[in-house]
């Protein structure tokens, strides 16, 4: 776990907790993406995030224990610890799905299940003519404007996992996103250059 010594952990309970929740949710999305597209690199990323989440959880516990000054506060803090444990359980479930991908033991039925669930995963290829090109994720705000949450971007041979708001979309990028089928179809048309305006324009 030495490699994580360099990793910066947020300073206070609130920020650590927010990071844990976002990380666990990302892990579930990535694990399903890995399962759907049989992408081992995505599965590996899930396992790395799992280690990161364990470290966050440890820091959270230490700080939470320090924060209690009386019985009532201690009781309230147990609520945070209980939620943190549940988040850790979710991340472990996601990691197990990722391991199944690495071991190549997925039954074809699983692909159908992922594709037919309410919120599914899609792969969106960005054509050079698309209005997405050259804009940052912050400019585009795809989650609000199209209902698609960007989980990862494939650029050439490289993966950008959990891209931040300054990430610019380039022609040829493959966006892995989560959303309803309608939302994903809509983003696909924007990415193909068929729809020329973003809804917020």
């Amino acid at each position, binding site marked *: 776990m030495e490699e994580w010594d360099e990793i910066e952990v947020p300073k206070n309970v609130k920020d650590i907790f927010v990071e844990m929740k976002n990380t666990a949710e990302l892990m579930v999305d990535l694990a399903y993406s890995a399962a759907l597209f049989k992408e081992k690199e995505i599965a590996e990323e899930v396992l790395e995030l799992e280690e990161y989440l364990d470290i966050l959880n440890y820091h959270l516990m230490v700080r939470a224990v320090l924060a209690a000054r009386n019985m009532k506060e201690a009781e309230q803090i147990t*609520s945070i610890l209980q939620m943190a444990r549940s988040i850790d359980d979710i991340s472990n479930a996601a990691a197990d799905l990722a391991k199944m991908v690495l071991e190549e033991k997925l039954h074809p*039925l699983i692909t159908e*299940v992922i594709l037919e669930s*309410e*919120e599914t995963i899609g792969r969106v290829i960005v054509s050079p003519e698309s209005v997405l090109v050259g804009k940052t994720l912050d400019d585009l705000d795809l989650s609000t404007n199209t209902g698609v*949450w960007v989980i990862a971007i494939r650029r050439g041979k490289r993966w950008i996992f959990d891209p931040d708001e300054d990430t610019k979309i380039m022609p040829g990028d493959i966006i892995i996103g989560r959303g309803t089928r309608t939302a994903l179809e809509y983003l696909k048309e924007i990415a193909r250059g068929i729809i020329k305006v973003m809804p917020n324009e």
Partner: protein
Amino acid sequence: MSEFEEIRGCLIEMKDLSALMIDLAFSSVMYNSEDIAEEVYLLEEKMDDLTLKVKRLTLRAAKKEKDPESLLSIIDLADINERISDAAYGIADIILRDIEPHPIIRKIMEDTEEELGRVTVRPGSVLIGKTLAQLKLPSKIGTRILAIKRGDRYIYNPGRDDTVEEGDVLIAVSSDMDKLRKLAGEEVEEEE
């Protein structure tokens, strides 16, 4: 219906329910709502039933399969969803056991990427009388409705044909809750 079709139906429902349960569980803690926590508890029981059903069907299907071991991942996927729903129950349990959630939890929920919120549909709102299918909130404003509170009653996981009525309280998850607030006719403080 073949076993596989039935298994597929169960697993899709389990995947949708486990995701819904997580959102509902966090909402229950955020709003200190026993009603929502209670629903998570009921859904958890449903998930247990579905898990058992998938396992039984898979075993039955395995009898006819040349390579029964290839079905193991189906049971594993049911198990993974069951564990996610257990985790959701673990969160809702805080409310069911009457522990007062720490005040920072609410702040935490407002700071996460997917914001949870409760929005009241005001008189004159454009949402009134429309079905969720007509509104297309997920693709239009990045918002999913987890539940509709109508009077004392909750409609959980509302479907395409459910209609929004005046006075409804929408429990939603969104990247920008203010958009929904505006559509519902609530006062929104403008940014900047």
